């Protein structure tokens, strides 16, 4: 790929200086080595160093650079810049308070994540080496533990937009099922009790926006379905 110019339309807001947010039109010339959207944004930052966004690992592991790219949530570091229609419109993740430019306040998102107790609860004394699982039991955790908590899914979910303080959201519910599915966990009943609520779990109406945007290819809707399935099996 040779040198080329890329046009951006970027949401800008600095609460110390700006009265209200605005969209900035800006272009940047990319080097041949700039392949991902994040490369282009880092290049852009050398031109305008007031542009703020989060990034860290630049390879889809840390989940810092989640943003709304041309109307769809995704990770800048995993998105090919040449696959995007120009001008590339960048906005912060929808539904969360903006701190500055593309940086959002994720407090509410992590509050919901913590509410499902995202850790193994086992009151037996720890064995000498490790708590074992059969390969079949371990298999059930695939597609659950890989979540990097980038918040692409929860911030694309209308139910989370309307009730971020009450609905756990797809990321939190995927993590909830990760521990419900774990045969080493002993807190299953309390975990199901914690979710059996018209808001916390049942705000999900399976519209699958979360599945559509997950940069890791995970399926929170399926995990939510399995939680409902567990509740039904417990009740009948």
């Amino acid at each position: 790929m040779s040198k080329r110019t890329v046009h951006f339309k970027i949401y800008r807001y600095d609460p110390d200086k700006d009265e209200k947010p605005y969209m900035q039109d800006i272009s940047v010339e990319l080097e041949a080595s700039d392949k991902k959207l994040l490369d282009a944004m880092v290049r852009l930052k050398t031109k305008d160093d007031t542009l703020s966004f989060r990034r860290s690992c630049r390879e889809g592991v840390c989940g810092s650079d989640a943003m709304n790219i041309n109307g769809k949530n995704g990770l800048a570091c995993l998105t090919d810049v040449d696959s995007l229609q120009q001008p590339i419109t960048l906005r912060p993740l929808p539904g969360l308070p903006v701190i500055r430019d593309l940086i959002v306040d994720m407090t509410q998102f992590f509050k919901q994540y913590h509410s499902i107790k995202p850790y193994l609860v086992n009151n037996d004394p720890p064995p000498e080496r490790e708590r074992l699982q059969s390969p079949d039991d371990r298999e059930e955790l695939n597609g659950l533990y890989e979540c990097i908590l980038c918040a692409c899914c929860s911030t694309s979910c209308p139910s989370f937009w309307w009730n971020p303080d009450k609905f756990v959201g797809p990321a939190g519910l995927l993590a909830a099922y990760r521990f419900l599915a774990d045969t080493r966990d002993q807190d299953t009943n309390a975990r199901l009790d914690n979710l059996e609520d018209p808001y916390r779990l049942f705000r999900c109406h399976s519209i699958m926006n979360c599945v559509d945007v997950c940069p890791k290819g995970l399926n929170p809707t399926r995990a939510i379905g399995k939680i409902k399935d567990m509740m039904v099996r417990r009740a009948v």
Partner: protein
Amino acid sequence: MVRRQPVGAHYGLKDWIAQRATAVFMAIYTIIFAVCTLTLSEFSYEAWSGLFSSGPFRFLSFLFFLSLFYHAWIGVRDIWMDYVKPDGLRLSLHLVTLFLLVGYAGWVAQILWRL
């Protein structure tokens, strides 16, 4: 003073199952209704009202409307829960919906047993 937001009403599963069960019943009734009306000997008011004079069909029709109203109660309440934030206003809308649907159920019984 900060009002803390409590959650954990524990009726989510019951309503979720009820919504699905009522939907299944309505789908089955729709098929029965379609078959019964399409196989009428003649398309006239007498034949149509004759259909409703049979006890089981009237019973199934009444169950259909009860399912519809229960289904609608959960669905409409979901809308209020999503979009109406003030608790007092939400409760009032819940009650209005509930009273309307109970009223409709009585009205349906009156119509069905008058046919």
